[in-house]
């Protein structure tokens, strides 16, 4: 997928060896929330009920399912931001579930997340440049050597926006800023949680293209969480289909879409507007 010696997005060399290793290994992960229903008693809700998942370096893997299927609980747990009830999450060989305090905060840099609502994921009071500098200061050891201006140019943004605050830039620009913030930490894995659903169709296509470029340029692994099957089919090498906290189907994107085995997967594919996935073919 990535040839040896290629100079990546952040200007460092990526070796062949790295591109074959596993960046993510999830073993029988369970996340149980206790929610109050009508009664005063708290009822356990098994958001993630024994999920196994792995991602190789340089892979783009889709995670699909309707809302409430456990996608978000799973991705938050992988990013060390959510609760883990039992199971194991290994990122580049480190077990995230065992880390606490400072070492946990450092490990979080390994998995970066891009969120659904690009404006909501930026501090409204902080300039774009201020946000980038904050990360530089915090992770001075691992942060990219490129300047803020160079980083922005790589994601197709003008350095002129460094002095602006989030309300002064568009949704597409804000999402590129989020991607820059994530990428400057040189993470092993990028989790993109519905990164395009808040954007216009034309901007969606540009962001999808940017993810592709990132993968080719720096061998980045991406977990792409979405309910937009057309985009998943276009972008992802493999996909996991989740329902009620368990993975019901996984495998090559092509296989899943052409001959879905599980009835739920079939249902999801049938629910896509324009059943033949014309959207996907039109290049979105």
């Amino acid at each position, binding site marked *: 997928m990535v040839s040896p010696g290629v100079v990546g997005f952040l200007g460092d060399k990526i070796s062949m060896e790295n591109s074959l290793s596993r960046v993510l290994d999830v073993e029988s992960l369970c996340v149980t929330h206790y929610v109050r229903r009508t009664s005063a008693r708290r009822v356990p809700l098994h958001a993630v009920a024994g999920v196994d998942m792995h991602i190789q370096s340089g892979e783009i893997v889709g995670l699909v399912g309707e809302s409430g299927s456990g996608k978000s609980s799973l991705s*938050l747990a992988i*990013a060390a*931001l959510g609760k883990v009830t039992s199971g194991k999450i290994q990122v580049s060989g480190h077990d995230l579930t065992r880390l606490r305090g*400072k070492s946990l*905060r*450092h490990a*979080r*840099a390994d*998995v*970066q*997340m891009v*969120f*659904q*609502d690009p404006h*909501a*994921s*930026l*501090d*409204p*009071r*902080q300039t774009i440049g201020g946000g980038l500098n*904050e*990360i530089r200061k*915090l*992770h001075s050891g691992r942060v990219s050597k490129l300047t803020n201006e160079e980083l922005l140019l790589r994601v197709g943004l003008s350095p002129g926006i460094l002095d602006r*605050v989030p*309300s*002064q830039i568009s949704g597409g620009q804000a999402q590129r800023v*989020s991607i820059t*913030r994530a990428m400057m*930490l040189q993470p092993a894995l990028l989790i993109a949680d519905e990164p395009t659903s808040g954007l216009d169709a034309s901007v969606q296509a540009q962001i999808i293209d940017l993810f592709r470029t990132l993968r080719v340029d720096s061998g980045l692994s991406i977990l792409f969480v979405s309910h937009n099957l057309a985009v998943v089919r276009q972008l992802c090498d493999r996909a996991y289909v989740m329902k009620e906290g368990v993975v019901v189907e996984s495998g090559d994107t092509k296989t899943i879409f052409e001959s879905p085995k599980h009835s739920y997967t079939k249902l999801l594919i049938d629910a896509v507007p324009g059943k033949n996935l014309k959207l996907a073919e039109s290049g979105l």
Partner: protein
Amino acid sequence: MKFFRYTLKKLGGALITLVLAASLAFFISHLAGDPTVQMLGMSATPEQIAELKAELGFDRPLVVQYGSFINELAHADLGQSLYAGESNFALIQSRIWASIQLTMVAMVLGVVLGIPLGVYAAAREGRLADRVISSLAILGQSIPVFWLGLMLVLLFSITLNWLPAGLSGDWKNLVLPAVTLATIPLARVSRLTRAAMSNTLEDQFITAARARGLGNKRVLFVHALKNASLPVVTLIGMQMGILLSGAITVETVFAWPGLGSLATQAVRNQDLTLVQALVVYGAFLFVIINLFVELLYGVLDPRIRDARQQ
């Protein structure tokens, strides 16, 4: 240019507020009855009363009196005190320093303790620490300050004999009234900070900040608190106005020579013009503090700044 127009609009609004407050003070204090009877005592003859009325201008029609009151205000003249025979401005000036001292110490205590307590409670929402802090805040807001003041006097002045029970002097005299007065801003600031923080902490940019590996302190105090600060700043401004225009109960309990006890005396003596002057002064303070707080909004929130410039 746009900022100029914005400022002009705000100043116009402030002026209208002042005139309304002054008018209200004028008419309500004239409803309270004739001050001349009280001033001369029960034995005064109708002739004496009529003479005093003519001397003070109370025999003129109400509208004329109102007109001259507003006219004096327009010339920054707060009038003469009926009782003390001094200018109201001089009376206010003689008490204002004591009020500023008391207010500042109480506000600093309230803000310096209230904000961190509110932040901590929001960070531990639903846990024991939150419940303890929230309950104490409700308690602090509900306790009548005169009762709390008396209890503190009982404990620290009478039983332990550590601190003086009243009057002004050195810093020791300030401790009990300031602590008593501080419970009000402390309880309100901590409650509002907790509420505003707990909303902000659910925002996605907070999760995003944690995802980048930011420490808890930085997330709470830099990102969340800055975004939750707008309502808290407004509240602090309002509290400041209330306390500066006279903490009536606390000043009475501790015989503190500030504007609050001046107001109590003025009412007791039916010193009509002094009451009016104090109300106008209070309204003036509120208007000035509000203008300042609104300017601060623009500094705290770039979105508001942008909206003003457009």
